[in-house]
């Protein structure tokens, strides 16, 4: 604590909003209403930084992470002195260079050379000092050929390089960086990182606000997670980043669940019209407590499975009113798994899911290209989300699950199961269940159905479930949507759900494409790399 070069004690920053949202208020209106004095007083306050206390020791590299608008930038501005705290104290020892906006203060009309001097003076240096380093600054910015051209003729990259170069050559004791690495090309980003490493080696202090979590993990000695103006977690970068990404995933879950609910609600209204006769006993919505589990459980489903469907439906996010329940349950079960409801059901889920398709297939009909119909006819690739079909088979619930719990965010390599709950008021002898996975741009990543995989339909009656399980979700990072369908073998739709269900795949590896085949690299001894990277992806 004693050698802290940056210390904030109980610092709060209130941003004031003035009466009548007067961002562009006018003197005239203030005078007319006689509200000049009151307009100059804050009307409403926003707490951008809320009672933050932290100390950065000399020579440390500290990463600030947090969502947009969480108060990172305000914190940096407080440290650099651009704004002063509303309450609390900020103490900073040493020369600070702020890389908050690169090239702020460049004048477009004058040359790069002149701007270097003016900018250097702005950053608190003498002309002679700058002259001494001038060549170095220009070389770092790679602008030897353009240094005498007016800055307005520079490309964005050149502009940024020059701004960065001037700022880091101030040779600060403390470098405050706000997300500048996001600009510029890859080479420039690398150069910035190298420069930071150099600073670090020389024992300078760096305070870095960034969304580049990899950078924080690799580069920083400590990470601070800011959320809604408060320090949410602080300490070992890997731990803090993990806590942060967990929270982000949770928010994403909620977000996707909410969107899916909304999409489903929209089409449920549409589907109510053609489905009117079929909807009498098991309407797509509102059948929660009423019918499905109670009336005639399908032969394959055990009592345990029937039990489980009840709460499972709550988290299936089918009904708007369940929002609170679903998310709360999610909260409780995700980290510890100690919540009562998921526990018993989880193992049962997996087995029953695998068992029910497992005992039906007649082996040996692996490929039947001719007779099977892919669940999505060609023209449907153009269709946007929606739901159609003539019944009588209805797909009443669709949940995307991981380990028996509804989930929307997965890691590459995770196990994913799609659970379809169907109901048919009359027995049907011709039925096919199909599923399609689409990427955000509409590319079909995978499509299959029970027919092409050789399952011979015998009879479908009452209510039941179909589970489509993927052992290892080998998709690259992205958002994917699901089509699910029940139809006849000739393609007459009973019930078709188009792009109504969303899941997101996350990955530590920024690989490209759609599909990540399981793979490994081997090298001969003379192709040498550093120590192998941490295993990436979830279960792979």
């Amino acid at each position, binding site marked *: 604590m004693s050698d802290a070069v940056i210390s904030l004690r109980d610092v709060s920053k209130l*941003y*004031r909003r003035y009466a009548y949202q007067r961002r*562009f*208020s*006018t*003197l*005239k209106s*203030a005078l007319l209403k006689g509200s000049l004095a009151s*307009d*100059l007083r804050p009307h409403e306050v926003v707490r951008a930084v809320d009672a933050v206390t932290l100390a950065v020791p000399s020579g440390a590299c500290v990463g600030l992470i947090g969502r947009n608008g969480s108060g990172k930038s305000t914190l940096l*501005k407080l440290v*650099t*002195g*651009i*704004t*002063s705290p509303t309450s609390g104290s900020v103490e900073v020892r040493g020369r*600070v260079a*702020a890389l*908050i*906006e690169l090239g*702020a*203060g460049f*004048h477009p*009309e*004058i040359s790069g050379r*002149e701007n270097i*001097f*003016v900018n250097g*003076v*702005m*950053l608190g240096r*003498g*002309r002679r000092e700058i002259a001494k380093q001038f060549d170095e600054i220009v070389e770092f910015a790679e602008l030897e050929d353009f240094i005498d051209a*007016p800055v307005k003729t520079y490309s964005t990259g050149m502009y940024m390089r020059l701004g960065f170069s001037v700022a880091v050559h101030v040779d600060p004791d403390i470098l405050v960086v706000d997300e500048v690495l996001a600009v510029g090309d890859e080479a420039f980003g690398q150069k910035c990182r190298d420069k930071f490493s150099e600073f670090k080696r020389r024992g300078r202090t760096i305070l870095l606000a960034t969304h580049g979590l990899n950078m924080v993990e690799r580069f920083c000695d400590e990470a601070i997670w800011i959320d809604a103006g408060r320090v949410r977690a602080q300490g070992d970068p890997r731990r803090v980043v993990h806590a942060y990404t967990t929270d982000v995933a949770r928010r994403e879950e909620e977000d996707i669940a909410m969107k899916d609910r909304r999409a489903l609600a929209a089409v449920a209204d549409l589907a109510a019209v053609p489905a009117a006769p079929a909807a009498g006993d098991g309407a797509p919505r509102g059948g929660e407590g009423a019918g499905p589990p109670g009336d005639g459980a399908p032969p394959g489903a055990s009592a345990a499975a029937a039990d489980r469907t009840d709460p499972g439906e709550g988290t299936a996010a089918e009904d708007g009113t369940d929002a609170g329940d679903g998310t709360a349950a999610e909260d409780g079960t995700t980290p510890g798994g100690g919540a009562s409801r998921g526990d018993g059901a989880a193992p049962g889920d997996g087995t029953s899911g695998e068992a029910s398709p497992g005992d039906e297939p007649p082996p040996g009909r692996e490929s039947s290209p001719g007779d099977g119909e892919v669940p999505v006819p060609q023209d449907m690739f153009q269709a946007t989300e929606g739901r159609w079909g003539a019944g009588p088979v209805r797909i009443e619930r669709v949940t995307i699950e991981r380990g028996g719990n509804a989930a929307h965010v997965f890691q590459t390599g995770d196990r994913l199961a799609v659970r379809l709950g169907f109901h048919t008021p009359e027995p049907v002898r011709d039925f096919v269940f199909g599923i399609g996975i689409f990427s955000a741009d509409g590319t079909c990543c995978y499509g299959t159905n029970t027919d092409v995989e050789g399952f011979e339909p015998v009879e479908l009656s009452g209510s039941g479930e179909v589970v489509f399980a993927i052992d290892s979700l080998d998709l690259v990072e992205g958002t994917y949507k699901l089509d699910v369908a029940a139809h006849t073998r000739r393609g007459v739709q009973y019930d078709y759900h188009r792009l109504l269900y969303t899941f997101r795949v996350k990955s530590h590896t920024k690989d490209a494409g759609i599909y990540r085949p399981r793979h490994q690299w081997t090298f001969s001894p003379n192709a040498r790399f550093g120590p192998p990277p941490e295993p990436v992806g979830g279960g792979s």
Partner: protein
Amino acid sequence: MWANLARFLRHRGLVQALVVRDLKARYRGSVLGFFWSFANPLLLLLVYTFVFSVVLDGFRPVDIEPYALFLFCGLLPWTWFSSGLTEAGNSLVVNGNLIKKVLFPAEVLPVVAVVANMVHFLLALPILVAALILLAPAAPRLSELVWFPVVVAVQLLLTLGLGLFLAALTVHFRDIKDLLANVLTLWFFATPIIYPMAAVAGRGPEIAGLGPLGKVLMDLNPFAHLAISYQEILFYDGPFGHWKWLLALAAGGAMLFAAGYAFFDRLRDSFAEEV
């Protein structure tokens, strides 16, 4: 306050660098470049001379000869004053990214605007000297000329004080800019620049104990004292008789500057949020 003022003096280098940048940037890309610093006042002078010697010949005060020289003595300082105030008022808003993104002493910006315009004024002085040599019946006396820098200093103080007020207020009220343009036009015609003080001093009803309204208004107008001082030093014969008013104005200017700085300092924390 005093600590801030001391800090302010430490920004000399920055003010200098920015003034030079402003001057360089202003005419960069123009064909005549710095020549415009001379050409602008010269053209302005030609316009006014044409209007009052040809178009409005009869309206011109008869006892002022040569009229062009008289006009020039007031017009040049006024140009500095009015464009200095206009630019100072806008300086914080225009350079918003400096205030929001860089640790930057905000007071430097209005100061740079005023000082840069002073430099333009000084650059135009050779034209005034040439006009004096060509047109003046008698060269101004040295004992009068020593007052010239004093007048310039007083004007600088006054303009800086007003500029700081305007800059801080413009951040909160953007329409100061439009208001100011009109106030300045009115102010120009309310100041003895295109007419001599004597032409208005005797006009209007008598104000108890203070003389005619015209004279009272002129006495209350700070720039009138500056204009009269410039005219007495450069144009009129005879000793510089307005020095008492000038020194009073200097005291007033110092107070205005201190008040403007304090006001600016008071609002300083709001700039980064409001710009």
